[in-house]
């Protein structure tokens, strides 16, 4: 491997979270090394892991790069109690996250309106898991807190960026299309 690829490998091995490309460029500490060189080295590293059949792989996630174990070894590693998978989120928590991801910044009242149930406890637990954060306060009465998703949300959902989620008008509505006469009543049903 090139020395840049080796350096990047060492740095990625020393981090539990994705490293942004900008930080990888800084790491090289060399004016000759820019985004292009880093991307080439990342590709080299990625291909090396893929073609040489490693137990790990390089993934682009949450706006940066991260080395992760390949999924086929997860069960064995967990069985041997060398590492544990995080708990799955409840359906209610996932719904709340989905709403926040699409509508951020969004306040609690609006989330509750969409889900039809109270959101207080779920917001607290998503906040504790650092999947959402307070991004501000709404104008107006009561000045409610507004929530948005965090970089850790992208990381844990293997998303490169928020735009990777389908746009709301791309979401197939499993139910049939409205008849023209109904369009007015349901036209604003989009996320």
């Amino acid at each position: 491997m090139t020395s840049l690829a080796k350096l990047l490998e060492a740095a990625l091995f020393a981090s539990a979270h994705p490293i942004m490309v900008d930080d990888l460029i800084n790491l090289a500490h060399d004016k000759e090394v820019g985004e292009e060189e880093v991307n080439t080295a990342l590709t080299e590293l990625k291909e090396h892991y893929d073609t040489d059949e490693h137990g790990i792989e390089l993934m682009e996630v949450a706006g940066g790069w991260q080395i992760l174990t390949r999924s086929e070894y997860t069960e064995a590693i967990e069985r041997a109690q060398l590492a544990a998978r995080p708990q799955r989120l409840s359906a209610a928590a996932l719904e709340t996250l989905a709403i926040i991801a699409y509508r951020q910044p969004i306040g609690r009242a609006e989330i509750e309106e969409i889900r039809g149930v109270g959101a207080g406890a779920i917001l607290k637990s998503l906040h504790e898991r650092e999947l959402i954060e307070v991004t501000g306060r709404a104008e107006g009465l009561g000045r409610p807190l507004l929530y948005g998703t965090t970089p850790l949300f992208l990381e844990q959902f293997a998303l490169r960026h928020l735009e990777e989620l389908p746009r709301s008008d791309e979401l197939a509505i499993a139910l049939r299309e409205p008849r023209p006469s109904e369009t007015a009543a349901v036209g604003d049903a989009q996320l």
Partner: protein
Amino acid sequence: SHFSGPLDLLLSLIRDEQIDIYDIPVGKIAEQFLLRIKHLKLDEAADYLEMAARLMRIKAQMLLPRREGDDAWEDPRAELVRRLLEYQQVREVVDLLEQRNELRRNRFARAFLPQQLPVSSANRPLALSLGELFAAVDRVLRVAKQPTLHEVVPRAIDVDGAIGTIRAILELRGRARWNEVISADAEPWQVLSLLLALLELAKAGELKLAQPRAFSNVEITRDVPGEAA
């Protein structure tokens, strides 16, 4: 329960019965909704009861006579349909998030980290500019509450809505307890609305309120006309 809320349950009923979401037979679906929540022992959960009450209200509105060719007639179900479609989209995103989450859950990140360098975020160099500071001042000015003035939030309390909910619940069950008609994390305005609605209905003789002990649950009983008050 494996339902994440009343909309989830309602949507699953609509799917099971292969009902056209744009033409929901409200009477039938309300009945089934009640059966299901009884069966699932969800009929003491405020959120589900509220949905049951809402369905009953829509059913009643559907029965109101309307004039032939009345253009101003608005389908009482429209709001429910809008919410169901919106919720349906949320469920689709959830499916997608679940897939992505599994993809990531099945991979471990590096757990061993070399000795943390003595670089706390506190001694990393700071990039600060006056422009940023002034922008912050501006934000504070725009959004700051007046110090010391305790803002009374004139959030509309919805006594009529609460009255409708209580009436519908009592129609279904005859009696209920405070914690069954309001969810534990209700906002103060919701609690206030409910309280005023209960007092209003008690005054009108539609129900009786009892609290066996101080701080115990308030019991709400429908006051059937003719029965001794």
